[in-house]
């Protein structure tokens, strides 16, 4: 039997039907900007306690240090975020080549592909902390949550992992991952929380 036309087998964004590019809330200069991130690759890496070689493998393969605490290491193409004891989230900005990368990691850790399990977005802007404070039970002050810090927690009853990627000209930049199935509820909360500051929305 002939295989089906490839045209059917196109992936669908976790944000499809949920987020549309544009603007929400009050008029004026945007206080917050949200950018959905599609096509990222994610995988959990878990090693037995005390296992040493994942760190060197990570350095070798993607040039990043394996964070020992609740931090994220970032390059322009990849990142690795601490996600629990002996547990990391490896990610790539593009899914192309990610499966092969995971294959090479599988000698050093238990690897579980989670590329489709998370809906990701970047949020930034001068008022972004005020928006996140409506859900985050963790302190986002610069002195406590510096660039590179990450946390697993929940926003408005939705489990999230997020990190502070960088500081831009308009204030801090965060990346947030939410369970794919809850992207809609997360967005409902985020949009309601950001509207009073004017939120610009871009789709990846």
């Amino acid at each position: 039997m002939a295989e089906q036309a490839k045209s059917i087998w196109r992936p669908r964004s976790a944000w499809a039907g949920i987020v549309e590019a544009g603007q929400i809330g009050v008029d004026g200069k945007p206080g917050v900007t949200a950018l959905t991130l599609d096509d990222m690759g994610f995988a959990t890496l878990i090693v037995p306690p005390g296992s040493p070689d994942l760190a060197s493998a990570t350095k070798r393969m993607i040039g990043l240090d394996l964070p020992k605490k609740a931090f994220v290491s970032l390059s322009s193409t990849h990142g690795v975020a601490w996600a629990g004891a002996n547990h990391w989230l490896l990610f790539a900005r593009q899914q192309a080549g990610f499966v092969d990368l995971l294959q090479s990691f599988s000698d050093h850790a238990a690897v579980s592909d989670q590329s489709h399990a998370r809906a990701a977005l970047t949020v930034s802007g001068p008022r972004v902390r005020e928006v996140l404070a409506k859900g985050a039970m963790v302190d986002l002050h610069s002195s406590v949550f510096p660039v590179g810090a990450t946390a697993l927690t929940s926003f408005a009853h939705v489990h999230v992992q997020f990190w502070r990627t960088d500081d831009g000209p308009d204030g801090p930049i965060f990346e947030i991952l939410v369970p794919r199935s809850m992207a809609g509820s997360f967005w409902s909360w985020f949009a309601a929380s950001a509207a009073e500051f004017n939120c610009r929305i871009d789709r990846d």
Partner: protein
Amino acid sequence: MRKQLHRLNSGGLIDRTQALCFRFDGKNYDGFAGDTLASALLANGVRLFGRSFKYHRPRGLLSAGPEEPNALVELRTGARREPNTRATVVELFQNLEATSQNRWPSLGFDVLSLNRLAAPALVAGFYYKTFMWPARFWEKLYEPLIRRAAGLGRAAAVEDPDHYDKAFVFCDVLVIGAGPAGLSAAVAAGRSGARVIICDEDFRLGGRLLAERRQIDGRPAADWLAAILAELASLSEVRIMPRTSVFGLYDHGIYGAVERVNDHVAVPPAHQPRQRGWRIYAKRAILAAGALERPIVFPGNDRPGVMLSGAVRAYVNRFGVLPGREAVVFTAGDGGWATVRDLTEAGAHVAAIVDARSEINPESKTMALRVGARLFAGSVVEATHGGQALRSVTVRDASGKRARLACDLLAVSNGWNPTLHLTSHQNGKPVWEETIQSFVPGRLPPGLAVAGSAAGRFTLAEALRDGARLGREAAVEVGFAAAAADPVPATDAETDGLAPVWRVRGNRGKAFVDLQNDVTDKDVELAAREGFRSIEHLKRYTTLGMATDQGKTSNLAGLAIMAEQVGKAICETGTTTFRPPYTPVAIGALAGHHRGKDFRPVRLAPTHDWSREQGAVFVETGQWLRAQYYPKPGEQDWLATINREVLATRSGVGLCDVSTLGKIDIQGSDAAEFLERVYINGWKTLPIGKARYGVMLREDGFVMDDGTTSRLGENHFLMTTTTINAAKVMQHLEFCHQVLWPELDLRMVSVSEQWAQAAVAGPRSREVLRRVVDAKHDISNEAFPYLAAGEITVGGGIPARLFRISFSGELAYELAVPAGYGDAMMHALMAAGEPYGITPYGLDGLNVMRIEKGHAIGTESNGQTTARDLGLGRMMSSKKDFIGRLMAKREALVQADRPSLVGFRPVDTNNRLWAGAHFIGIGRAAKTENDEGYMTSVAYSPNLKHWIGLGFLKNGPTRIGERIQAVDPVRNGEVEVEVCSPIFFDPEGTRLHG
């Protein structure tokens, strides 16, 4: 603009350039920005604000703050109506509309004020002693009457149209209250660089300084205030939160607060919340909430025109309102004399000063002379006169001589009570301080310090000193270097002499202790007489302190009178516990965003949009929305739809989303050993590429969950759980690994979200899959038999997993693809299945087929059933230990007559069955003693053409063929059923292997 007759020509912190018009009880008035509703009404000469709870007595303003017991109004109208709103804290806004409450037909003429005629019988606790006969009259007659008469304002009848926020904030030092102590503390802490939050419930910062004519460093206090506010604003780590009440103190430095973001406008601007509930996490906190002035209990003390002396000063000095032109001041301390001064300076005449103390110092005497007031030393006010407004008072002097004095204002001063409420939210007991005759904070919760009046140090000098010291100390304690301390500013001279009067006995008129709940001194005496002497008994028996003001102005007098009754000192009688919230908090602010559809997150399968396109009806399953069935135009009802779906699946092929099942990736050299310990059955022998059904128990021996687990590699398994239990199972497995057996080499992670999964079931399912699975994979019956599990590809290389497992009893597969391809998978399967009439089916269709096959789900394994009850007892291995093994062996759980799972069919096949029916032997009475079990699940089987059911029946498996009644009294049903095997369809399982 209408003339505000009681407004002073100048002064006050109101903006006279911004006139605001508003309505009270349908009448229009004008006020100014900076007014409260109370001050604006007072400026317009309104004296009567409300009616009391029980006797419906006319009431006016007692206070100018959150302690107000009398002036409660319904604010706004329609869906935004807010009952019981204290007029003293409502910031005036343009077109404000307020209505008096708890009166009919009008505030001026209230029919229920006739209660006064029955008042002699309506004493504390009267209802416990009567209304007992006849018993049924309580609900029918007495209670409805009481309920209608009781209550205060009317809640809105329709949904609150406003939005609420909830937010979290962290700080080093939280300062509660922005009076002189709080501001000093905030600046002292803030200068060191600490993150400081200063909250005040008022819309203007300054606390008592706003109400008093004081000097700091030789200049008006307003100058000091302006300077310190400017400095606070300049400190980048200081956050100033006006209109924010810190209402509760919770464990580990967590403070609840509510910010009234938009209560000072008619309608919140678009996208803005009405209020915001805050959870404040503070390393240190300083309570600088000030103090509340206490009234005196004397006959007629509730008449409109009787006002706290500090409130009089607030109206005069802050709001530029003269609460009366001819005043009498009744004081037990120096506080009243400040009121004499301020009233006089504002242009009122003080007719008399009644000081309960017999010794009056010479300066005071001079002042009395200067203002032209009669001075009554060692005297009390023993009665008030007038109708709905004060006209005169009777003063009784030390010799017992009485004088009647005309006045329209009686200012009462009896000292202050520290606003220490938050210090007792963690069970801290206030302690009695003899020198100030008041309770002060006792043992403090960790991290909290108390400054100024809130600690019972009432002078301005002490407030400034306390604040500066505690602010600095708090910053140092959390690791900041102390900022250089400015010298504490000097204040003008102040005295706080006091000899409080708890009660004045008089000949006539009620003397109120609790104004809002209409508790009198006589009620306290009665409680004492009847043995309700413990303070908590007093409170509960008389309702003292249980009104919306929580006894802020009444508790202490109640205690004092009780102490007098039982012949003890106040410190021996103790005080009641202050419970959160400090002031009432809108329920909406504590719920925030989480209402309506946002009450809890909803989880949508990656195939959700596809299901919606197919016209699915959805149903809640835990957090998930799942497709229940897929109606087609022209179908008569849901049953017709489900019958079509089931028949199409059994005869051809059906398609059902099963993405919501929990999926756990388990890797490690001990993975198989681990499964042996958490499942009842064996796992070590499972070959790679095979799936097996497993059952797990709780440690108490009852079934926890079930599902199939597949071995993907020597040390790699994929477990599936039920949709509902996915998180619970993950937590359980983590417990087993981390707590019980950390020595096992094991790595687990949930991959539930990663995979979209679909069941393709029916005799043509293989043909459909053949067209979807990439050609290189052999999925023939031989190469991929029943219970095979493998990693494959679809769509030309997309990684996927295929499992030959079946819940429907058909030849069936479950195909899993990365969730982003879930939508594509459904379209691909539909396209591939089109020649075979592939039919989407939902949970209901699945349910019919699983009942036909006798598979148990959550309604059967409901936490009260064992594996044995479910007919799975033989799965329990005796060769190994596993969770729940021993407790499942308890005598009652292995009793032969325990209800066990069997099938049921109606004897008359026209009858329908109902889940929830109980089984009663034929001819036996429908009562508990004859109850032999119950029906758990039912379905109409379109294959058998009658209803079928599963249920638990005592000795069930031994009673096949027996008849019994399924009784269902709540639905008036009684159906004779025959006990049968739970497997109704294809008992040999030949279709599975097809």
